[in-house]
């Protein structure tokens, strides 16, 4: 596989994961607010903070309300991390890698792009239509993942695809966790004990993890348990631990992959059993921030090893 193509496959996969994550986040957030008492002051702006996009937001909008935030995250084509922009990046990268991807992937992304643009024009961001719109986006992303997993040869292209997907997914899981913890730290909800339950339930739902958590951990939702599940569960495909292990496996299968294993291991994120979170305060925040930085370093290692052949 060409280095240039490898890099584009990696990014296609990351962006597709990002599209799905954005759709899930907004969908879950919309539901979350319906379950919380009116006087709990949870701001839509958290969604912006979670992506470290405060600066980007503030150059475009004054008011931090639902309408602006939803537009910024989903539809703003000047925001480099919006859903529409990510979608167009998936399409643009696929357009230039059609030679290695299964034919229908191209058709699916064209359909999804056309659908998203049209739905947004038709008011798909409004509360009344938002759920339907986002669910459809999530389903289409899943369709594409399924299609690729079941028709693309599980060769180098697939390994590159896995690396991008798992890296992006691990990153997003830490962001969602961090956001959940911060949300509760900032609130005085002592009188209303159901609030943490609602928040952590929605954190799980953002990762599509509610069912897996119930089966594997407990029926009752507790902050530390949720955090540990999303970080350390060895079987759930969106847990940080699972993502990093899968990524490591893909790296090993790729040419020149073993060469960088020691570099990757030196980052200390591929341990057998990951850190256990006891407190949902700075310990979790630090863990998340630290991991995000290390994932960035990982990206640089990949670039040097595969994407920029000299």
């Amino acid at each position, binding site marked *: 596989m*060409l*280095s240039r*193509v490898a890099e584009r496959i990696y990014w296609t996969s990351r962006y597709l994961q990002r599209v799905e994550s954005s759709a899930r986040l907004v969908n879950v957030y919309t539901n979350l607010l319906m379950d919380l008492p009116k006087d709990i002051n949870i701001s839509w702006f958290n969604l912006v903070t979670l992506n470290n996009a405060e600066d980007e937001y503030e150059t475009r909008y004054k008011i931090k309300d639902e309408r602006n935030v939803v537009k910024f995250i989903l539809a703003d084509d000047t925001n480099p991390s919006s859903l529409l922009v990510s979608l167009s990046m998936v399409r643009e990268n696929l*357009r*230039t890698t059609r*030679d290695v991807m299964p034919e229908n992937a191209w058709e699916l992304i*064209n359909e999804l792009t056309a659908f998203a643009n049209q739905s947004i024009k038709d008011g798909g961001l409004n509360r009344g239509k938002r759920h339907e719109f986002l669910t459809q986006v999530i389903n289409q992303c899943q369709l594409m993942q399924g299609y690729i997993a079941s028709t693309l040869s599980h060769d180098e292209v697939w390994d*590159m695809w896995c690396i991008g997907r798992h890296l992006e997914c691990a990153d997003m899981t830490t962001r969602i966790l961090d956001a959940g913890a911060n949300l509760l730290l900032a609130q005085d909800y002592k009188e209303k004990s159901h609030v943490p339950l609602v928040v952590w339930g929605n954190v799980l739902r953002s990762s599509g993890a509610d069912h897996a958590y119930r089966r594997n951990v407990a029926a009752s939702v507790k902050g530390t348990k949720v955090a540990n599940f999303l970080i350390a569960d060895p079987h759930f495909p969106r847990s940080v631990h699972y993502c990093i292990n899968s990524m490591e496996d893909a790296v090993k299968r790729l*040419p020149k992959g073993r060469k960088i294993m020691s570099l990757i291991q030196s980052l200390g994120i591929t341990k057998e059993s990951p850190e256990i979170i006891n407190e949902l305060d700075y310990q979790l925040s630090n863990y998340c921030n630290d991991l995000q930085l290390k994932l960035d370093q990982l990206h640089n290692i990949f670039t040097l090893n595969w994407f920029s*052949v000299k």
Partner: protein
Amino acid sequence: MSINWKEYQANFFYDELINENGNPRLPAKRLAGYLQSLNQNELQRRQQLADTAIQDMGITFTVYTEEGNIDRSWPFDIIPRPISAKQWAVTADGLKQRLKALNLFIDDLYHDQKIIKDGIVPREIIENSANFRKECIGISPPHNVWAHICGTDLVRDGDGEFYVLEDNLRVPSGVSYMLENRSITKRVLPELFEQGNILPVSDYTNQLFNTLSDLAPHTDKPEIVILTPGIYNSAYFEHAFLAQQMGVELVEGSDLSVGKNGYVYMKTISGFEKVDVIYRRIDDLFLDPKVFNKDSVLGVPGLMKAWQSGKVAMANAPGAGVADDKVVYAYVPQIIKYYLGEDPIISNVETFLCSDKKQREYVIKNIAKLVIKPANESGGYGMLVGPHSTKKEQSEFIELIKKNPRNYVGQPTLSLSTAPTLVGADKLEPRHLDLRPFVLQGANSYVTTGGLTRVAMKKGSLVVNSSQGGGSKDTWIVDAEAK
């Protein structure tokens, strides 16, 4: 209400579907009958279906404009253009004959130039050719074939016969659209394919792959790549499509490099991998900045030397464009006779060379009824259609001709054939069209089953180029005799 073919007026042109009495021609019989059975809402619905399919399939082409490059949806008309299999068989033979002769001609020009010494073709037209490459002199590419892939433009005149309008031997495009047009039509008019007498077109990519593989006879599994100028090229869609259909790598110049040993390598995640065959979709002058255009960032330094020493094969070979010249075109009948000792199966359109004093005078005198073409342009740029031009445009062209007579030819304005085309929501009107079949030559020869039909969507217009508002149709080779 449905179509009444008796009311359809082809206005004295040869119509591909309907004869002068308002009856369908033999290969169009089932089609015309079927279209008649659809009411106009249904016709419109099918066209919308096609437009959606084109969007989903991402079939686009890029237009260069002053505001930058725009990706446009591929323009497609759902009414197919049927041709009888019997007539096509003869035409296909003619196309193979023509390319065979042209390849012998190119090979001769870069070796002994016998055809010039024998006085068949004048020396001046080679010496003044923009596409003659001195770097190719003495080189013998595999099978002595230079133009492996040729797009020949055919037109049907008032007499119902096909004529060759031009040969495209540099980097002809359009074949992906031919293939996609068929995919769309199968989705939109599936009922018509039930009978099974519409011959399939899908063999092309397989044939192309074999042609390219044959250029590297020393390996069983040659590494074949398509070299594209990149996403800003008008034919990028096609480059990606062909790479995908053939299962080969789509590369840009920066993905390739020439090693110290003179071989060509591509940069992969495992390091450098040797390349055996390059299907290049870049013009000669951008191939190698060491030899041609020094500023080219599209090409690969050292590529020409690798090709000259036989370390990599290229299709089409550099220098093949020398026969892709409207002046050389005028000599093709003699070229066929000279090398093959045969009469041309498909005729040329009568052509007046402005380099010849007598013919030039004729062209200038009759400019209002001729088509004037520059010798080395493609895409329909820089030409004058006499009957559709103003006095001012005509005198401008006369000045151009006088300044550079070698660069212009004149041809009579043909009465291009027409076919019913959906106009507005639900009306069928005749529109002019041409046909570009694709011809392959390597160890063997192959002609596409039909080709790409291009339609001038504007009433009365003869300009079919998609860059200038042309559309397209699916082309059916119909075995009308089949039971």
